[in-house]
């Protein structure tokens, strides 16, 4: 039974949205800036007026104020209370909802431990880092034990390493707690890693909802395909299990190792930015290496797409423009490359 249902919900540029989010699901909404992702969260939370119906656990929550919907909300700007300590920030919702001091202390202590911020309990928001603030805001939104958590770009503004670490940690914590999560991001790589399903929004409408793998193999239309970067789709003839949850698949002249606990893989999707190309043979050994000939070069603003033929296969690589400029790659030249295995998707 779906936990959250949107039925013909309309607000500003978002028109007639219909969506089912399953109980306990980690649901990620991706799309460009202004696509309506935050508006979608605001509708579920009930902080903006809309027409249509929002159902949570089959109950129409339209007449309910935000806090009675059992929804927690992590704002992109976090909106921590600067005049309250970390502990008081986390306890704000509990105090407002009339929890006893004993229960409050227990819950706050649990969340401080869960978010690994016990050492920050007495500090004020201006005394902690951006990543720590995000943890505090998340603890605050989890404190009243919401059934559903809405996350608006929770990793924006963080350095890539912290962002990756935080989003993975977030996913693990929320899955463990069984909280249905709607996570909004513009970062497709982040979405791929953590989502059970991905929804893609364009100009206020939901273009596609699918699992990460299905998203890459069947982009539905060119807008989605362009957003995900037109992945290379390869048919696989053979699958050979290796050790430690890895398999090797053979696709014509390419042998590719990827993480999978499966016996047979039919197709794999390789995002172009997961394909590295070099003009000279790299000295150190690489995973999934290949050699090929450049067939086509397409220059864009910040990137260059290089199409390489490897026997019967063709792979498109997307390189940063400055990296491309530092190499002597032209049509017909021999190039060396590697396929990063952590961003491969497959169909069994």
């Amino acid at each position, binding site marked *: 039974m779906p936990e959250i249902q949107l039925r013909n919900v309309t607000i500003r540029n978002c028109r007639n949205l219909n969506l089912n989010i399953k109980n306990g699901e980690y649901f990620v909404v991706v799309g460009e800036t202004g696509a309506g992702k935050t508006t979608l969260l605001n509708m579920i939370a009930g*902080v903006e007026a809309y027409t249509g119906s929002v159902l949570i656990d089959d109950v129409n929550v339209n007449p309910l104020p935000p806090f009675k919907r059992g929804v927690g909300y992590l704002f992109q700007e976090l909106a921590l209370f600067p*005049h309250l300590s970390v502990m008081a920030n986390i306890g704000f919702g509990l105090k407002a909802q009339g929890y006893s001091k004993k229960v409050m202390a227990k819950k706050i202590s649990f969340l401080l431990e869960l978010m690994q911020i016990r050492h920050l309990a007495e500090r*004020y928001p201006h005394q902690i880092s951006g990543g720590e603030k995000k943890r505090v805001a998340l603890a605050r939104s989890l404190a009243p034990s919401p059934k559903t958590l809405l996350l608006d770009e929770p990793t924006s503004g963080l350095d890539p390493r912290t962002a990756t670490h935080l989003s993975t940690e977030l996913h693990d914590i929320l899955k463990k707690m069984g909280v249905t999560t709607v996570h909004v991001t513009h970062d497709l790589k982040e979405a791929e890693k953590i989502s059970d399903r991905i929804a893609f929004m364009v100009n206020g409408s939901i273009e596609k909802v699918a699992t990460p793998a299905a998203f890459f193999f069947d982009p539905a239309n060119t807008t989605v395909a362009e957003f995900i970067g037109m992945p290379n789709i390869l048919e696989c003839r053979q699958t050979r299990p290796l050790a430690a949850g890895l398999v090797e698949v053979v696709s014509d002249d390419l042998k590719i190792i990827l993480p999978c606990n499966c016996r047979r893989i039919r197709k794999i999707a390789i995002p172009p930015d997961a394909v590295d190309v070099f003009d000279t043979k790299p000295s150190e050994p690489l995973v999934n290496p290949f050699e090929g000939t450049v067939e086509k070069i397409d220059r864009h603003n910040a990137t260059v797409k290089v199409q390489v033929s490897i026997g019967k296969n063709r792979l498109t690589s997307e390189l940063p423009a400055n990296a491309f400029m530092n190499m002597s790659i032209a049509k017909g030249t021999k190039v060396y490359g590697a396929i990063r295995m952590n961003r491969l998707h497959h169909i069994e």
Partner: protein
Amino acid sequence: MKTMTFIKNVWFGNLNLWKIVPVILFFTLWELAARYGPFAGSAVFPPFSEVLLEMVALFKSGVMMKNFASTLGRVLAGLCIGTISGIGVGILMGWQEKVYQSLSPIISLLYPIPALGWLPLLMLWIGINETLPVAIISIGVFFPLCYNTAAGIRSVEKKMIRAAHILGASEKQILFQVILPNAAPQIFTGLKLSSGMSWRMVLAAEMVAIPTGLGALIMKAESLIRVDIIMSSLVVLSLMCLSFEKILGIMERKLIGDWTDNA
């Protein structure tokens, strides 16, 4: 280089010489100018030491204490009335958009009128009595406080209010636990402005219309050409202004210093 570092260390070190020396220099120059300057020996510019002695004599005789107590009472009464009404109306204006829209034009119209501009009107309306200085201080305190409170409340980020709503806070909780604490820095700015202003206004009111208080003492001293008494009264006044500001500063640090730059 070493000498420069030594001077820097002494000047800005633990002794806080950079704060103390200019004050000592000021009073020394005053003393020297009064004793050896063009007005030396004249009653119109007494040395600092004589002003101090006169001040002690005035306190001993009870004259200064009596007048100071009258002035202090008026300042406290005016400050209390102006503060309560200013913050109250400011909260209403900041919290309720319709109240803001209704009162904002009137406040904008009346705020620029100097507090002393109200004096002739108040003299006619309420007469020359104890209420007059209290009323003028209240008016002078009301406007900056009302303006700063409303502006402080309106500047509280909407996202914070939205977060409090989602966390289940009632309107009252949002006002008292989110909005007012966040508007506090601006309310304190209004309070500090008003406290200094209240001493200036009470002095003017007492000089013009009231027969008791520091202002009245100054006017009497002026008619007797007792510059030492005038200066003594001004020193007391200035010390009071400074004390009020310091007390408010301490209150500000205690209440909001932990999470603002005033820590």
